[in-house]
């Protein structure tokens, strides 16, 4: 997989993950171009399209589009299920997930994605394994958290 994008129906990019080195300017251009193409497609159309030298696999979940760019010889259907598994993971972690969860906890969404995909390849397909890894990390996190004084919180706001 070359990259994965999450964007909303309004064309707001919610998450981007690049698995090959790409210049910032090219990234922006590619994102804009792809969003335009994907958003223009009608609901019943097929989930695959050719774009440049890549294959795009996308699926819409409510207001969010999940969009993966894969290479010529990669399997489209399994990529569709990569997307679905990712959504399941998000859903399981956040409870029933919504776009706002991803906006406000973007770093968590990245961590989950990282546990699931690495270098564009699937790391573990077991939902349990991935969530265990994330929960372990959360556990560590909770231990880290020391009680914070009200004053400190105020100073930060």
């Amino acid at each position: 997989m070359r990259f994965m994008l999450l964007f909303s129906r309004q064309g707001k990019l919610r998450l981007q993950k690049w698995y090959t080195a790409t210049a910032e300017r090219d990234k922006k251009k590619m994102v804009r171009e792809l969003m335009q193409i994907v958003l223009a497609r009608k609901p019943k159309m097929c989930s695959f399209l050719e774009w440049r030298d890549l294959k795009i696999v996308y699926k819409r979940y409510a207001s969010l589009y999940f969009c993966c760019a894969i290479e010529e010889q990669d399997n489209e259907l399994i990529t569709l299920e990569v997307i679905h598994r990712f959504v399941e993971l998000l859903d399981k972690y956040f409870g029933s997930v919504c776009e706002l969860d991803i906006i406000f906890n973007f770093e968590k969404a990245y961590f989950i994605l990282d546990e699931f995909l690495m270098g564009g390849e699937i790391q573990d397909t077991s939902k349990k394994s991935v969530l265990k890894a994330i929960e372990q990390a959360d556990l560590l996190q909770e231990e880290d958290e020391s009680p914070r004084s009200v004053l400190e919180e105020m100073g930060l706001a």
Partner: protein
Amino acid sequence: MCGARPSLGRGRCTQRGRSLFLSPSHLGAPCRTQRLTSRLSELRNKVTPRSRHAEEHAAHQRERTNMPAVSKGDGMRGLAVFISDIRNCKSKEAEVKRINKELANIRSKFKGDKALDGYSKKKYVCKLLFIFLLGHDIDFGHMEAVNLLSSNKYTEKQIGYLFISVLVNSNSDLIRLINNGIKNDLTSRNPTYMNLALHCIANVGSREMAEAFASQIPSILVAGDTMDSVKQSAALCLLRLNRTSPDLVPMGEWTARVVHLLNDQHLGVVTAAASLITTLAQKSPEDFKTSISLAVARLSRIVTSASIDLQDYTYYFVAAPWLSVKLLRLLQCYTPPEDAALRSRLTECLETILNKAQEPPKSKKVQHSNAKNAVLFEAIALIIHHDSEPTLLVRACNQLGQFLQHRETNLRYLALESMCTLASSEFSHEAVKTHIDTVINALKTERDVSVRQRAVDLLYAMCDRSNSKQIVAEMLSYLENADYSIREEIVLKVAILAEKYAVDYTWYVDTILNLIRMAGDHVSEEVWYRVIQIVINRDEVQGYAAKTVFEALQAPACHENLVKVGGYILGEFGNLIAGDSRSSPLVQFDLLHSKFHLCSVPTRALLLSAYIKFINLFPEVKTTIQEVLRSDSQLRNADVELQQRAIEYLRLSCIASTDILATVLEEMPPFPERESSILAKLKKKKGPGILPDIDDARWNGNGNGSVEHSESAEGLNKSSPSLMADLLPTNRPRPASSSPTMLSAGTMGSAHPFTDLLNLNSAPSAGASLLVDVLSDGFSPASLDVSDENFSRFVCKNNGVIFENQLLQIGLKSEYRQNLGRIYVFFGNKTSTQFLSFSSSLNIHAKAVDPTVEGGAQLQQIVNIECVSDFTDAPVLDIQFRYGGALQNIAVKLPVMLNKFFQPTEMTSQDFFQRWKQLGVPQQEVQTIFKAKHPMDTDVTNAKILGFGVALLDGVDPNPTNFVGSGVIHTKSTQVGCLLRLEPNGQAEMYRLTLRTSRESVSQRLCDLLSDQF
């Protein structure tokens, strides 16, 4: 509520309608997609009736109250507030303002005297990350992120790594510091930290990181005590480094142990390892050959397992679909297993997968069918890759045939795509053809353009002589309503098919004119150049073409491309229809001229040339045309080109005699035959990978219109400017055969072995009087030692010195095109004295050159060559002259070798291996292993292989150090496709060269020639 502080309590806010993804209840719903969409439209309906202001206000409120509580762990309150603020900004300006305020705040905190604690650093770094992801530039904070790496608090470290993997580019000067942090974590023996570090390396994947860690990661991967999750990360991390800097990932004893990970207990480890091994095996298949049996065994266990056996690795009742797909991919790096037992086990697996496709679904969910079919499609890809089991191929084709009518658009799309590759296999081509009606129907009824596009591709791939008329007709009718985005491609495809399968050229002309009429704007120059080339090269169609364009031009509005074709063809062949009073010269001229003023400058220029040709063809319209040329709008045209043409043509028509006019404006000679420029254009447009190769027939050699192809006129140049120049009558090319000073080929006879194979003839250089006595009498081949010491130096190059002694230097310049060649031989007198009675002749044909060569002077001789059939012996040039009284006799073998008649052929990896397999008969392959005679330099080898005449194919051989080439040898009677592969072994300083062609003699000769070069 308005203005209330966002609630950030730990309890979740479970307002209805907020959850937009899957809730557990929805996961169980039979048709989730529909539910989701219907729920969505409900939402939308609720919102629309309200006034805009009210809606915004409400949205604002929702925003504030709905800000989700962070479910677990951390609470970076400041971050949540900031994100909320940004979302509440009503305009872009407000957002920028808010961001700038925050940036200033963070900057001051970072610069402040008070040292920040880890939590604050984490929070600010996270805010910066958020700002960056919104699309704003971030130019500070990197140092703070790096500091977080060394924090002993997990969450701080984690945010540090996230920032770095998103924001740090490879050439940052911080890389050393980052590497330090990674190093500490890698050696920490804490699996969570190690995973973070490995993720970071994989995410950044820069060269510096590869340099620092590439040697360390393999040992983590194969160490016995490494945790499974770390193994998985290490495998994928190594994969990423291997992709970005393969040279830095050394192969070693770990490779064998990596292969054994395929046997691991933990399926997650196997999945990650399978990805790594596939990538490595693509590059060096030999090193990972042992993975074949392990992969087959694993696959077999998965496909035969009951669906629940694999527990969490079963996905919607499909056993380990990801792993299955990966194993099937891995097997595609190799040919079918040689071991019979293994091979039958694999065949069994593939059959089981095909059988499962016929079973009733275990679940109605789309995830079930997607996962199942993902494995099925990958299995079909492997079957196609092996291309060796006719039954499996036909079964695959039938399965895809079912999908062609499936209600899922995705499956129809994939079936069309997959069938394209099946169409090029000889075993399944016929089976694919049976689906023609379904595919045509798809073209007409599919609502999604990308599916229709696949249908066009498949029709193109399945086209052969038997169905070409139907397919071309269907494509033409589709063209009328086709989407603009794919029109040009369809035009190219129709043009290629019409040409390739034209038995009757009137059909071809009609088709192309139809193309121009229906999609004139999308008809590229190459297409209309091509129709003209073909009409010029084929006498039988010229009259029909003239009549047809004349009729087409009658239309009140016709496309400019039609005017171009019409102008050109009537200018050449208008006389063929001039007998009919309805298309008399004057009518023709008036018709063309009626279009003149609406056309662009290049078309007008072309029309002017057609007019001057008319003056030659039809003296009766001369005065009319001269008048037109003389008009101010021509002679004083603002465009220089038009003005010049008008002036010159007018002048020419006034002063030249009829004879001169007839010579200058003679009919165009036939164009030399070359690769179709349309085909080249389509390849360029589509990229070689996607295009099913039209030239299969030529390679297979089994019918399918190879005759038409080799007969048809081939395109001129690939670059259009020169094509344009060639086509304009003022710059007419002079094909060799039409030149009166040249001898026609094939007139000589001799007993020499290669005479019947090579037609050679010498000719004087045009205009020069160097050569006299063009056809002097017979000459017996000299029986002296033939010099061939430099012969082999010319295998991969065309120019240089072939012979040199104290007296004489013989240089050569040669050029080859298809089955024709021309050698310029330069004889240099190195002495200061004259050579007398100088003669130079080929051993099959005698021809004298200027008998005297002055001291220090150079004499030139031209040899024209035609390759009639494949050959081994080279012609010998005999030279005799008198130098100071003594008779000198020199014989030089002319470097005319079979490989000179190569036309390079580009092809994809898939095509290459397919053809390679097709040429699998033992006699077709010649292989040799030899010691390197020269230093083994990749660039030099590249240049040599290119010089040899084949196309060098990048990325075909899984091992990048190997060289793979392909080309077609052109002889007069036939064309021989050749594939070659050169495998250097640097350590042993040896090469292995393998050649496969359809002819044993050709394979042998090419192998002999090339193996001598390294």
